[in-house]
């Protein structure tokens, strides 16, 4: 077992799946010779050739649209969109074509593709390189949306995504890319899409989050008094959501704080809070709280840490929910 960071783990998953299945292709801007701007695809072109690891022209709609064609005609494309801020031009192809094709052809034409997208802030990146658009794509039908936070989960979820018969957006929290290493098995394993993970079991309050804020939540937990028992849940998949795990937890704790980087309005926190009030109404001991990005533009990096839901804001929300 190797100690790998998130970048290395995703690289390993891609290499192993390309080895296993010759239908798998990697394509995108700078993914070949350069190995991707974050080096996630480093070495793949050398190993699998220019035909299977393709430096495409600089056009996101083109990358997604041709990936749809590749998928329709028997390939398993894994396109990379360099930053989530560049998903905009590909939005139409993802939402109106990849997501709808199975349904509008009543199963005759399907689009098995996995779009890899670095996501989120916290790395002092240029403008439009730090957003969190997972709710937008979860709102649209026919697309699965995942966001692993750990190297182990990233490999398992990516293999599950590539093998999934439907389109999957695979968000990679760039703040976690090189933040730490953990054991990632060489073996072939998958993490099921749609399954959340309980990181710590607790009795007093449930904290629900995903992506890079998992680590902000862990930091907040460290600052709480020892007698506070927190159940921390990493959603891992944003859609389809693991409702059972969160409902079961909040029915137990009666209190919940939802944390995400994206802006609050119509974010996934709104959806989760609604599910909880529908399914845990009489179990709730306090209003469900959201600790999120503000309803502003994601600021350029001098102010980004004020926007991001960092540990102190999470800790404060947990304390307020407990005191209610």
């Amino acid at each position, binding site marked *: 077992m190797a100690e790998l960071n998130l970048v290395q783990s995703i690289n390993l998953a891609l290499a192993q799946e390309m080895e296993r299945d010759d239908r798998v292709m990697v394509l995108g801007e700078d993914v070949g010779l350069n190995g991707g701007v974050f080096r996630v695809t480093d070495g793949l072109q050398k190993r699998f050739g220019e035909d299977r690891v393709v430096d495409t022209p600089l056009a996101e709609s*083109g990358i997604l649209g041709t990936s749809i064609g590749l998928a329709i005609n028997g390939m398993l494309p894994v396109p990379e969109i360099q930053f989530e801020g560049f998903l905009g031009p590909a939005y139409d192809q993802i939402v109106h074509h990849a997501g709808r094709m199975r349904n509008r052809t009543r199963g005759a034409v399907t689009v098995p593709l996995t779009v890899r997208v670095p996501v989120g802030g916290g790395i002092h990146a240029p403008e439009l390189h730090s957003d969190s658009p997972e709710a937008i794509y979860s709102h649209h039908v026919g697309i699965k949306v995942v966001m692993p936070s750990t190297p182990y989960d990233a490999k398992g979820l990516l293999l599950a995504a590539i093998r999934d018969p439907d389109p999957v957006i695979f968000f990679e929290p760039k703040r976690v890319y090189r933040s730490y290493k953990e054991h990632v098995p060489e073996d072939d394993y998958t993490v099921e899409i749609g399954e959340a993970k309980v990181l710590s079991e607790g009795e007093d309050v449930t904290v629900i989050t995903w992506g890079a804020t998992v680590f902000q939540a862990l930091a907040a937990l460290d600052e709480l008094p020892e007698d506070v028992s927190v159940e921390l849940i990493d959603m891992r998949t944003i859609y389809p959501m693991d409702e059972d795990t969160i409902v079961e937890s909040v029915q137990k704790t009666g209190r919940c704080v939802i944390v995400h980087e994206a802006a609050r309005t119509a974010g996934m926190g709104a959806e989760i809070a609604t599910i909880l009030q529908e399914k845990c109404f009489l179990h709730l001991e306090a209003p469900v709280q959201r600790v999120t990005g503000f309803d502003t533009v994601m600021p350029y990096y001098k102010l980004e840490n004020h926007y991001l839901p960092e540990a102190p804001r999470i800790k404060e929300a947990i304390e307020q929910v407990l005191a209610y």
Partner: protein
Amino acid sequence: MPRTVAYKTQIQHLSVLDENGKLDSKLGKDLLSDEQVQQSYEHMTVCRQYDEVAFKLQRSGRMGTFPQNKGQEAAAIGSALAARKGQDWLVPAYRENAALFMHGLPMHSVLTYWMGDERGSQIPEGVKITPLSVPIGTHMLHATGIAWAAKMRKEDSVTLTYFGDGATSEGDFHEAANFAGVLQVPCIFICQNNSWAISVPREKQTASETFAQKALAYGIPTIQVDGNDLFAMYLATKEAHDRARKGEGPTFIEAVTYRLADHTTADDASRYRDTSELDAWKAKDPLIRLRKYLENKGLWDDEKQEALEAKAKAIVQEVVKTAEEMPKPDVTDIFDYTFAEIPESLRVQRDTMRTTSLGQNPDQAGLGARAAR
């Protein structure tokens, strides 16, 4: 020499069969057999009848909005003739029904589709056609990708994609052409320049003298063709097809044609289009010139024409019957085809036909706990 010529080219225009049904003896020689021409004429006539009946179905409330194909049959059939059914891919917009029927799409499917039923897009197994694409220009990228996959899989397969003049203003057209040029994929881009994008004339669509020249920017061989000329469309597509099969990449074909009907049944072209222009193009109708050609060769007469028209009516009548007699789809279809495997929350919506939670599982909402208190 501070100023030199960096690039120079010209755009060819290809015409083989003129408006009077006269064939260019050199270009037209041995191009299509009499049998092929006659079959094409017959298919065109059936498709014209189909188009007229579809219009009437909409007007009588038996079908929703329908975009008529009238006038563009030669562009569709001439190009589709050069492609191999079940082996080459057709990636259509919605004004080339005749090509799709030639390549195995059941004729009732298009009516089923415009009758508001997704089963019209449920392409049968083995038919290499993607569903009709209503948003403009987005499908050309799929064509490039399909051709790319064929190249990757070393399949002997060429992809033909159809779109209008307006579609060349969309960014996706440029990305599709650029990718196809860079990747040298076996794809033929067939631009049906019918002069109008709903109400916007081609002069307002682009400052280019031709649509064909747009492909030059992407290093793609390109040609302008008389789109109402079956022979020219076949020849240009055949040449493109041969090149594609030899690994010489994509081709762009501008088919100069004309939309003889409104944009769709929801449109009224008299609001923006002069009758004189329409009348001038009626004289260039691809059916008229093909009939003249066949008559000149002694292959056609009024008797055959009458028999063909009766046959076309019978075929279309049967197709309409098939479409109209299809039972209404199951409402569960809207859920069942969203994913290969239905997610739990969607399954609940399907099984209850509700998006509300009350009344579904009181225990889970904690209402059981309230009853106990």
